[in-house]
């Protein structure tokens, strides 16, 4: 028996144990230990996959990956993807292990792999361990600087990697992100740009586009309908198509565009895209609907500001807010970023609101809300998320909007799963 097979069996045992013991961590631990045992696992198991798509960027990876997954599945393709935001090598290894045969150590029959990779993991895996047919660059924003470093150094890393990419790869770039357009010079293969008519990303927000910036594919007539979704048109080869996505905010249009172009390159029919959107449900905590409200992940200034923009138009008398700010490694240990998000947007609708602040840095969150214009009497601090959730739901007249950082979201999913409100995330 080879070491590779042993690594796969080891991974499978860990997957089994985490499931029966309900200890979570099912998306990273199997890959982590299997890789310790057999470091070349990812390269060997991915080499026979017919088509591979890699998605990177600061925000929107999970949503883009999920949409593309829906489109491909609708077309009847067998797809594997790393889910639940485990976008390092170990997350990919875990996915590969759970899709491998225990007897032969070979990957099951798949048509397409969709890998979301974080900004740094991209450089570690592409192209040596993962050879993508399509690479998507969604955006680059200030994120957790303690983990990823500054935007300049992220771009430098990507450029280096792109110089190693072969001619048969297609690179898709969000052309409304000026920082990303700079990557074009480092690319020898085919590049296509996508974007939204009249929009341009500047700093943490979008501004009106000025001058001529011809992109290969543009969304037009964007109509933002808050949490009910977004409508827009796409002109593709002289034909105009109308789309409606069940996700709020302008940024999700970019995620859709990336998934859409990719689907077209993979030969997925437009009709499959449209019918997949009909039953699309948002990813894990990304504007995810619950019986009593919504969960909207916040993890960096841009993402949070975008969520607040959506909430501004949605909040009504009787609604409540629950913020859960953690400073664990996966959240970023620096909570300074909350001061770069425009929580001031809440002040316009704040007079009737009550906000509960939870998480390891609950006090920092409470302070941010005070300086954003909420009265201290409207702000409650409850570090323990389970208690905070209970308190937030007691006597709730309207809806509850929960805004957690990443590890707070994981904890929240567990709490909700235990009480039966939500399926456990590994079943997604």
């Amino acid at each position: 028996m080879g070491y590779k097979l042993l690594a796969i069996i080891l991974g499978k045992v860990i997957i089994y144990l985490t499931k029966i013991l309900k200890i979570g961590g099912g998306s990273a631990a199997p890959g982590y230990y299997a890789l310790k045992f057999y470091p070349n696992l990812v390269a060997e198991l991915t080499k026979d996959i017919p088509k591979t798509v890699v998605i990177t960027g600061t925000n929107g990876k999970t949503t883009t990956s999920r949409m593309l997954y829906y489109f491909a599945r609708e077309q009847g393709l067998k797809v594997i993807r790393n889910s639940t935001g485990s976008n390092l090598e170990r997350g990919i290894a875990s996915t590969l292990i759970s899709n491998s045969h225990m007897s032969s150590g070979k990957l099951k029959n798949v048509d397409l792999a969709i890998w979301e990779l974080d900004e740094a993991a991209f450089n570690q895996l592409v192209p040596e361990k993962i050879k993508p047919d399509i690479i998507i660059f969604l955006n680059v924003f200030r994120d957790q600087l303690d983990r990823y470093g500054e935007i300049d150094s992220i771009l430098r890393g990507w450029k280096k990697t792109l110089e190693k990419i072969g001619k048969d790869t297609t690179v898709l770039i969000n052309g409304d992100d000026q920082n990303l357009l700079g990557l074009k010079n480092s690319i020898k293969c085919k590049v296509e740009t996508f974007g939204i008519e009249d929009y341009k990303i500047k700093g943490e927000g979008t501004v009106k586009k000025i001058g001529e910036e011809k992109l290969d594919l543009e969304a037009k007539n964007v109509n933002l309908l808050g949490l009910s979704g977004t409508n827009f048109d796409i002109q593709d080869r002289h034909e105009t198509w109308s789309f409606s996505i069940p996700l709020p905010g302008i940024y999700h249009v970019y995620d859709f565009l990336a998934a859409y172009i990719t689907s077209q390159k993979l030969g997925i029919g437009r009709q499959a895209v449209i019918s997949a959107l009909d039953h699309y449900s948002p990813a894990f905590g990304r504007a995810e609907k619950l019986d009593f409200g919504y969960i909207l992940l916040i993890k960096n200034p841009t993402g949070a500001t975008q969520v607040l923009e959506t909430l501004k138009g949605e909040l009504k008398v009787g609604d409540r807010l629950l913020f859960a700010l953690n400073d664990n490694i996966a959240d970023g240990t620096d909570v300074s970023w909350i001061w770069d998000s425009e929580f001031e947007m809440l002040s316009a609708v704040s007079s009737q609101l009550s906000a509960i602040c939870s998480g390891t840095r609950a006090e920092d969150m409470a302070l941010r809300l005070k300086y954003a214009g909420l009265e201290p009497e409207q702000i409650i601090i409850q570090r323990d998320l389970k208690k905070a959730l209970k308190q937030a739901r007691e006597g709730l007249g309207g809806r509850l909007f929960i805004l957690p950082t990443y590890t707070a979201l994981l904890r929240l999913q567990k709490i909700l799963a235990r009480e039966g409100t939500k399926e456990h995330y590994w079943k997604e």
Partner: protein
Amino acid sequence: MKLIIGHLYPELMNIYGDMGNIIALQKRAEWRGIEVVIKKFSIENKLKQGKVDLFFFGGGQDQAQELVAGDLVASSKGKIIKKEVEKGVPLLAICGGYQLLGEYYQPHNATKLTGIGVFPAYTVAGDNRMIGNIVVQSSWFTVHGQEETSMNNELPAKHTMNYLVGFENHSGKTFLKEGAQPLGQVVKGFGNNGEDQTEGCIYKNAVGSYMHGSLLPKNPGLADWLLTKALELKYGKEIALEPLDNTLENLAHKAAVLKYS
């Protein structure tokens, strides 16, 4: 009363949480009925003497920092800032801003960036990033509660009341020159250089520091000290700021001290 806050290079020097310092200064003034105007000074803007009551200078990425270093000299903004600080105009500079206001910055394998020389300090590029929560014991400020409006040198040295809390993320190592006054002594974290336990620098009413966090919201005593100094210079009289309810500020401060020191 009215206060003009000059935000230096806000588009280029705003790496992480720098807005929090502006928000804290603005709100804490406005809550006391002091009108605040925030003026941005970017590469294309001119800075004249006597037009700004309080300066804020945030941190930036390497490329931005080079641009700004050049402009500080070319536009003579640097000279004016130095003159204003000599006059007693308060200033807060964080991370990159702090480095540029020292005497020079020496990057790896590149030419020295000449600083403005407000702070008697210099910075050299380091090999490791100094990242993490930081707690500093400052003999200069009361951070908590009732004495927030003024500097208080009499507090017992080991009292948590005069701790400053924040988050640092830098690879540059700053060294203070002989006789320079640090902002405080590191209790937990790296500070100026990870070697001599000093953090930040104070010269007249100018404060330089590596502490993000954001610094001022969780350290309201420092925010109020800057506001007081600005108003005193502008209106030529002693100012006692109206006390504010700092319950949430103190909770956040205390939580950080307890967790990280």
